[in-house]
């Protein structure tokens, strides 16, 4: 409900709000400029000012004092209407008071788009949309970030989303205030608010006395005066018309007494306040802040649109569901998706199952109808999580329906949760689904699993497990909803390992240029960090091979380490690349294997091409965070990847220590041997909060885990616990 409101209010009003906001931002400069040049009002009475100006301004008819403190005198002389800015203390005429034509033009654009009352209504409707946007946006922010207490948590995702969220959190309050006060002013213009009129007219006497002596004016502080109109000469019975912050009245020019008075009502006072807050007249600094916040509106519109565009491309592919009736399907695939990405995974699974001969019905979890699953042999549930473990959009009502089951479906279920491990309720909804299903006595097909931040590896692993469980072959095609592959051009290569029968290369590719639209929508190639994955699409096969990136996009290139596998299609093609050649590839975020921004020491452990991301962390470590590298290779003179760099980085402090083990030398050592040698130091580092990052082959990772288990046990630390805390992460292949 909230998301569609936000989307449609935003799409509908974006253009008008941008015009209104930009003109408003420009208008906010006028009170600010006025405040810079303004002299403070003198501490005199309204009567005193009136008497002074009567002497100094010929033909004086009216005095106005603005909330910002400017004094304007209106006069009529020799058939000409004149308007002066005057000095209140001396009565001196300073300059003709002019209204800028540009300001007038901007004002009319701002409030009515030059369309009169119809335009005012359009702008007022857009302002209502702005209110709806800020409020629904606030609710959506809380939901996305995992609760109201996390409202200020850092934003994640593509540039457009981060920009949208950060700008909205920065300027949202100001935009709300502008919209609210603007609507109030519009309501006043259309006469929807009770307004106090003028008092009934009472004629005054003819005799003249100086305004400074008049009882009604001599005790009125100048700052409270808004407008004083003098009686017209020759108009019998005419009086002073006085308007102050408190009300409006008539003053007898003969006696100086107030003849009639109406006080301003609450609506007038609220209107004054709304006027000051909205225009910044009398509150120039606030006005400038509101103007500054208004500048964010077009950017919010564009980034919102960009997210919408991204959602369309992702959703269009995901929701093209081939119709297999639930009654005819042997596999029921239920999807609980919030933003649309889970549908993409479901589609790939559906395609793989269909290729393996299954008849698959795909539907939202909210459409759960077990009585129709006549031939179902399994029910697979892909469930994302919304906020604090809540049901995502397409799963509303699922838990209630499971709880109300009289008899659990005969077909067993399996749950795959999708979520972000950075949030407290990681896959919280999937956990609830599983608990509810088990409580209903529903048999479970296989152990549940989780996909962290749309990790393709996590997903592929679960699909493999599913295939094993079902005894079939499942062939996942690469995600069709992902970004288009780009051609990466090789700029240089460094070759290693030929002497030890392990030809290995560090390949460096140039970064393709990204258009502004691609930057906004998160399309194209980048940005990325060391540890993210490069999915390379070899010629003659559509299945990508993943390589860990040894550089971040801020390094200005994309670098990977490749070892040639005998008969390997992709590694063979990569090893054959010469500078200038190119290869098709897609970027895959892998946030679980990022070094992070904190200052905790890192113990980096890798072997062979597993050095890649670790070298990337070191290269990017300009802050000289303590990084300790344990690196296993075959022979120092042959396959010590990044050898010269490691020396360099150690010298300039990017690496605190480097330990190398070689398996083809007389010593025959592996990284785990180095760890055992340094056991005390490693245990001390971990006790002090160090994180461990392991990259390389499965065998090596197992050996390292065993060694660390032994090393950390005396210190009361367990690898399992470190893993659960995210302090021990592996990127294993």
């Amino acid at each position: 409900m909230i998301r569609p409101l936000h989307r449609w209010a935003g799409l509908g009003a974006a253009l008008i709000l941008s015009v209104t906001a930009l003109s408003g931002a420009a208008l906010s400069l006028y009170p600010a400029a006025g405040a810079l040049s303004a002299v403070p009002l003198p501490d005199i009475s309204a009567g005193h000012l009136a008497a002074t100006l009567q002497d100094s301004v010929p033909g004086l008819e009216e005095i106005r004092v603005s909330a910002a403190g400017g004094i304007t005198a209106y006069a009529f002389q020799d058939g000409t209407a004149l308007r002066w800015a005057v000095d209140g203390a001396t009565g001196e005429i300073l300059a003709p008071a002019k209204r800028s034509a540009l300001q007038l033009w901007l004002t009319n654009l701002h409030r009515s788009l030059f369309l009169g009352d119809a335009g005012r209504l359009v702008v007022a409707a857009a302002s209502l949309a702005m209110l709806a946007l800020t409020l629904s946006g606030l609710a959506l922010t809380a939901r996305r970030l995992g609760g109201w207490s996390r409202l200020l948590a850092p934003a994640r995702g593509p540039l457009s989303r981060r920009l949208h969220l950060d700008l909205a959190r920065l300027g949202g309050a100001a935009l709300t205030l502008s919209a609210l006060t603007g609507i109030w002013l519009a309501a006043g213009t259309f006469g929807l608010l009770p307004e106090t009129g003028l008092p009934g007219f009472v004629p005054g006497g003819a005799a003249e006395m100086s305004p400074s002596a008049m009882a009604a004016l001599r005790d009125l502080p100048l700052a409270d005066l808004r407008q004083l109109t003098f009686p017209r000469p020759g108009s019998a019975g005419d009086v002073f018309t006085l308007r102050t912050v408190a009300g409006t009245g008539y003053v007898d020019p003969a006696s100086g007494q107030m003849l009639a008075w109406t006080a301003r009502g609450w609506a007038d006072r609220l209107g004054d306040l709304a006027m000051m807050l909205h225009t910044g007249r009398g509150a120039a600094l606030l006005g400038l802040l509101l103007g500054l916040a208004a500048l964010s509106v077009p950017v919010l519109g564009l980034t919102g649109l960009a997210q919408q565009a991204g959602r369309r491309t992702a959703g269009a592919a995901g929701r093209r569901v081939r119709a297999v009736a639930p009654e005819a399907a042997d596999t029921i695939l239920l999807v609980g998706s919030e933003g649309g990405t889970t549908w993409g995974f479901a589609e790939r699974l559906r395609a793989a199952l269909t290729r393996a001969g299954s008849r698959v019905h795909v539907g939202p979890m909210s459409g759960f109808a077990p009585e129709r699953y006549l031939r179902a042999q399994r029910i697979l549930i892909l469930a994302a999580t919304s906020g604090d473990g809540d049901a995502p959009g397409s799963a509303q009502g699922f838990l209630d329906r499971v709880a109300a089951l009289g008899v659990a479906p005969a077909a067993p279920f399996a749950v795959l949760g999708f979520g972000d491990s950075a949030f407290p309720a990681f896959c919280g909804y999937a956990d609830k689904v599983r608990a509810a299903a088990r409580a209903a006595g529903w048999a479970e097909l296989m152990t549940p699993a989780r996909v962290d931040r749309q990790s393709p590896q996590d997903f592929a692993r679960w699909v493999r497990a599913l295939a094993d469980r079902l005894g079939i072959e499942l062939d996942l095609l690469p995600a069709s909803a992902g970004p288009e592959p780009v051609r990466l051009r090789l700029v240089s290569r460094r070759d290693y390992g030929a002497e030890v029968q392990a030809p290995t290369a560090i390949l460096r590719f140039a970064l393709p240029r990204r258009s502004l639209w691609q930057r906004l929508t998160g399309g194209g190639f980048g940005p990325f960090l060391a540890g993210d994955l490069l999915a390379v699409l070899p010629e003659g096969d559509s299945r990508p091979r993943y390589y860990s990136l040894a550089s971040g996009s801020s390094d200005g290139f994309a670098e990977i380490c490749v070892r040639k596998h005998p008969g390997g299609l992709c590694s063979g093609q990569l090893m054959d690349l010469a500078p200038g050649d190119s290869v098709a590839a897609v970027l895959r975020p892998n946030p679980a294997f990022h070094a992070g921004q904190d200052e905790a020491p890192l113990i980096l452990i890798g072997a062979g091409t597993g050095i890649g991301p670790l070298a990337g962390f070191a290269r990017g470590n300009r802050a000289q965070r303590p990084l300790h590298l344990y690196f296993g290779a075959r022979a120092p003179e042959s396959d010590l990847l990044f050898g010269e760099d490691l020396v360099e980085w150690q010298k300039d402090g990017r690496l605190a220590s480097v330990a190398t083990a070689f398996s083809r030398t007389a010593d025959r050592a592996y990284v785990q041997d180095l760890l055992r040698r340094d056991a005390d130091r490693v245990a001390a580092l971990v006790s002090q909060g160090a994180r461990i990052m392991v990259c390389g082959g499965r065998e090596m990772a197992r050996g390292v885990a065993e060694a660390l288990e032994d090393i950390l046990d005396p210190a009361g630390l367990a690898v399992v616990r470190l893993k659960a805390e995210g302090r021990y992460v592996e990127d294993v292949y």
Partner: protein
Amino acid sequence: MKTLLSALALTTALTAPGLAFAKEVTFTTRMANYGGDGAYLAYYVTDASGAYVGSLWMAGAKAKYYKSLSDWYRATGGNAAEVAGITGASVGAGRTLTVSFDLADALFDAGYQLHVDAAVEDMRDSPSEIVVPLTTGGAGQPVAGRGYIASFAYEM
């Protein structure tokens, strides 16, 4: 063409016998380039003693701004019913407003005066910016305003 079976006809005693003898009168109001929003203009008639007789035309639709037409407002107590049915759009700077009426003969050469109050948002009110006696001889003689109105004339 507007017939003066309007405010004057409804509210004043002098119209009843005079209506049989009416003539078409055209008001032409040329606005100055005062550099502001559209002006509100109130056209109304006072008698020889200066007392309000009735309204002829109101240029400007929002009653909340009528208090800026201060002489008219004082005379009528701001009663919008005085101009019900004889209200048009406000008049932009530099534009000309032409309105025609069937006015009773009795209004002319009898001491009646036509007033035009003018007001513009955020600018000074200009009550009775135009005050002209309604006379047969005065027809076709342009009168200059003091602020917003460059010139006003009535023709018959």
